[in-house]
């Protein structure tokens, strides 16, 4: 990339991202943000942790890690889906896709604030676990967990592109996104150990984002080194890239189809 190319890329990445973020979230006050992205994940954790205690299943720590990573990732899943859908709702989708601006820069620029959201969510859930449940990770583990959250979010963002693309085509992103969230919640070992899932479910889990990261995070919390789990993290990254490519391809195909059938901006 030329220097000018990099500058343009960065400009689109940061400014385009920030503007769209503000536009999408201009209706959200702290009164909506805090409950949706912080309080609900916290209560989700408490719900499952206590359910685990009721069933005498694993430990608090086990649930904290699973739910923290999952909650953080969901912000990425929805963020991506809404970025795609939101453009359509505000009728800007066709103009966005039509600009010569680097489309990757544009969409990734939207992914950055979403990632920040995710980090804040995961931090909140981890702290809640530390204060309210039996979860006492040594300080050294914290940055490692942060890394895992980033990897999981990246991976789920890739899935988010596919989700958004499919949702766009089916004209209902929220429903598709909720469906995907439900699937991830059930399959990826968030609250049910993979060993306790029917064989076909744990097989599906292997190709879904988050599964490997969550497994890695739990091992790290138990004292494992990054080196011993890096294959898990790389697997998740690969899954994310794969879904991202599929999603991007779908988007371009649907966009082409949309131009052909004039359905891009139809509400």
């Amino acid at each position, binding site marked *: 990339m030329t220097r000018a190319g990099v500058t343009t890329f960065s400009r689109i990445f940061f400014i385009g991202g920030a503007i769209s973020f503000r536009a999408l979230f201009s209706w959200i006050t702290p009164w909506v943000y805090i409950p949706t992205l912080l309080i609900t994940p916290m209560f989700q954790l408490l719900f499952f942790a*206590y*359910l685990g205690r009721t069933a005498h299943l694993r430990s608090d720590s086990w649930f904290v890690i699973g739910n923290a990573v999952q909650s953080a990732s969901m912000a990425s899943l929805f963020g991506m889906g809404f970025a795609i859908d939101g453009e359509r709702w505000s009728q800007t989708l066709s103009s966005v896709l039509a600009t010569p601006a680097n489309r990757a820069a544009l969409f990734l620029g939207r992914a950055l604030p979403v990632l920040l959201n995710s980090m804040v969510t995961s931090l909140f859930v981890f702290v809640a676990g530390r204060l309210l449940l039996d979860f006492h990770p040594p300080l050294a583990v914290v940055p490692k967990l942060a890394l895992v959250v980033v990897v999981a979010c990246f991976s789920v963002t890739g899935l988010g592109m596919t989700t958004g693309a499919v949702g766009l085509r089916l004209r209902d992103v929220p429903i598709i996104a909720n469906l995907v969230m439900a699937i991830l919640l059930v399959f990826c070992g968030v609250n049910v150990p993979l060993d306790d899932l029917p064989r076909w479910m744990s097989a599906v889990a292997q190709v879904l984002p988050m599964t490997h990261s969550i497994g890695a995070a739990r091992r790290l919390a138990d004292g494992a080194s990054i080196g011993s789990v890096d294959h898990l993290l790389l697997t998740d990254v690969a899954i994310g890239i794969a879904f991202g490519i599929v999603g991007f391809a779908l988007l371009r195909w649907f966009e082409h189809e949309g131009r052909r059938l004039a359905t891009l901006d139809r509400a």
Partner: protein
Amino acid sequence: MRYPKLFWHGFVVHFKELSASPFQIMTAAIWPLVFATLAYLMFRAGSGAPSLLYASLGAAVMGIWSTTATSAGGAIQRQRWLGLLELLVVAPAPFVFVLAPITVAIAGIGVYSIASTLLWGRLLFGIDVHIASPGLFALAVPATVLAVGMLGLVLASALILYRAASAFSQGLEFPVWLITGLLVPLSVLPGWVTPIAWALAPTWGMRAMRHAALGGSVLPALAMCAVLTVAYGLAAVLLLRYFEQAARRRATLSLT
């Protein structure tokens, strides 16, 4: 004297209106299945869990609360969006008798989730649904719907002026699931949660339904449902009186 008739009629109309949306039914019926599945799997994997029928019933009531939390807080918002809020307020009937049937109808949609969770449990997990006292169970279900619907009324009334009403009430889904003993027994939770749980309708509705199905005294729980129904009603009347005045003053009735 026509208020009971108004209430019943309103309930039927709104239940019909809400049911006319397949999307609404699907969401009401499917969302709880996700948590039912998780509960079944977790209980099966754990080493000392309650029975799966216990989980099944819990998930069913979770569905009733789910529709209430998702829709009741935003019930007023929806009427506003439909352009109907003004017409409802300007009707000579006291607003509480206009709004209560709506929130109870919303809770009533939860019966679709009762059906779906029990069926799901039966089909996929082989959970046999044996009800010990069918008569009392048949009484416990509407009692639960009514009590939870009235709790939804309190929610709707308290949030009438707030744009973020919907998001706030949706945020109450998990907390109430957690503390009303639907899947997690109150004995597992910290002691100070118990009095709060006792003030919430799902706790008693759950108890009534569970005891009717699995054995135990149903009538005290039903009595508490009735008490709470009345208490919620009174709270709503007070809240609505205050907020309707405020809405007339601040002109927020027709905000879209």
